[in-house]
């Protein structure tokens, strides 16, 4: 696949995304915009489009970094306990300091996400049976244990509703004034670009990396910080989006390989395109109502995921 096809798809889909919604606005209206149409564009449509693109980019790149650092194709923030730990942190922040500012709650959730991810990596080190499928299963179990702690506290403090909001990704609540936090993840994406070569070397394994003079531990830890922080940001703005961090990097890896210098842009663009498609589908299938993005991605993503697993079997 050529990168310019992805760019063209991204432009067309972004444009389409702007003109789908309950309030009928067609591209022709751009020539003659009424005040309320401008309001809708600025307040809702544009923020939504931007959030989808950034979330798609960030989740895919996070998945790619995690897969590279854990050297396992089926590890991602949703299958390694990162998202679950971030949710637990956010919930505890709500319980312990309910009056704290959003950014402070985010910091707290980030610390939990980071701790959870490190713990998962430590468990990985201890596991002797390093089967490709077994490791993400360990991650899912670990995530579920963390999740059950969250559920316990959520019931106790009557916060189940908040917990569910973060469980299921949803773009319908994205509006100007409550999405800007997502911009925090842009510098993280840029950092990922600067570290692309180092992540690739780290992905060859510790001994390879040391042989090439890489500060292996630092690069791995740094990568996990990027993953944990960007996952927390996405969690806070849109909630959890399953599968995307898993399938997008895998698809790119199939046709482009694992040299991050080459695959990072493709992964980022494909992530945005994939999420835009899912969002547009979710908005038109039961128009004028909406299917939450988490559900659409879940259905399409699981199908692709099964295909990837079968394909992998054919390889071995």
């Amino acid at each position, binding site marked *: 696949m050529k990168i310019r096809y992805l760019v063209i798809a991204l432009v067309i889909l972004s444009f389409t995304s702007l003109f789908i919604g309950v309030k009928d606005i067609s591209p022709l209206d751009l020539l003659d915009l009424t005040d309320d149409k401008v309001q809708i564009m600025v307040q809702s449509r544009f923020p939504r489009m931007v959030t989808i693109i950034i979330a798609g980019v960030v989740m895919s790149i996070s998945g790619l970094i995690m897969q*590279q650092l854990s050297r396992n194709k089926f590890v991602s923030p949703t299958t390694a306990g990162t998202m679950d730990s971030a949710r637990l942190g956010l919930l505890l922040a709500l319980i312990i300091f309910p009056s704290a500012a959003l950014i402070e709650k985010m910091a707290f959730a980030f610390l939990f996400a980071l701790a959870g991810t490190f713990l998962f990596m430590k468990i990985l080190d201890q596991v002797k049976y390093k089967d490709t499928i077994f490791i993400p299963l360990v991650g899912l179990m670990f995530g579920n244990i963390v999740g059950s702690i969250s559920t316990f506290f959520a019931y106790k403090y009557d916060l189940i509703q908040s917990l569910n909001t973060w469980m299921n990704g949803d773009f319908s609540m994205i509006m100007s004034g409550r999405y800007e936090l997502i911009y925090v993840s842009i510098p993280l994406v840029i950092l990922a670009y600067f570290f692309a070569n180092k992540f690739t*070397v780290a992905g060859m394994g510790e001994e390879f990396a040391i042989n090439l*003079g890489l500060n292996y531990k630092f690069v791995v830890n740094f990568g996990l910080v990027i993953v944990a922080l960007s996952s927390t940001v996405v969690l806070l703005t849109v909630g959890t989006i399953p599968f995307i961090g898993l399938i997008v990097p895998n698809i790119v890896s199939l046709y482009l*390989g694992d040299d991050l210098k080459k695959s990072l842009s493709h992964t980022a663009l494909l992530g945005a395109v994939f999420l835009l498609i899912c969002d547009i589908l979710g908005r038109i299938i039961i128009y004028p109502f909406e299917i939450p993005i988490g559900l659409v991605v879940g259905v399409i993503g699981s199908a692709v995921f099964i295909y990837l697993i079968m394909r992998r079997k054919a390889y071995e």
Partner: protein
Amino acid sequence: MVEVRNLFKKYNNKTVVEDVSLEIVKGKITSFIGPNGAGKSTVLSMISRLITRDSGEVLIDGKDMVKFKSNELAKKIAILKQANHINIRLTIRELVAFGRFPYSQGKLTKEDWSYVDEAIEYMELADMQEKFLDQLSGGQQQRAFIAMVIAQNTEYVLLDEPLNNLDMKHSVQIMKVLRRLADDLGKTVIIVIHDINFASCYSDYIVALKDGKVVHNGPTEQVIDSVVLKEIYDMDIEIQTINDKKICVYFT
């Protein structure tokens, strides 16, 4: 020159390397031989900083290894461990290009690329350089990894069981390459090897280890000897000379 002085390493109170001292001659092939669990790989890993030592010194060109920056050391010493299970999808060319990482941090200059091309040419991989590693046979993979090490252009090349899982043809091919690395390019090659006949035919010096200690260390001529080998392996090994090479017969 690599100089090892009084190296010790313990795992869970079990001593695996005990008071190992040796000197590696420049521009020659030195083979580490010995039974399983003799500590050969551990010594090799300590020389190349992959594992830390408990005590002792490893001097590289007279300077203690730990005083080098990791990146500087990567330009002096290359180590290749048994690499059968690398599961990253890179093409041969991408892999070999990462051999230049210590010099370029991934932004390769024209000069870097010429090293890459040379290394690929040297290992006769040019016609398959765009193939992914997971599409290659074991022998081709091993050649690709050695090409990466050649691109790294270090004075010292350390290989841990480079013939592991290779058939006879590919084993001979790899050993001939190592011979050329020493003879043509003047590199110092240190290998851990199990097949004593390959060690006998291709190396200049042999270091024999047993139970974490050096039991013999000298020119190949001297170590490939029934009495010496009996001491190392606890078995009677008959030695015959075929085409000027000493061949050990130990199969029956």
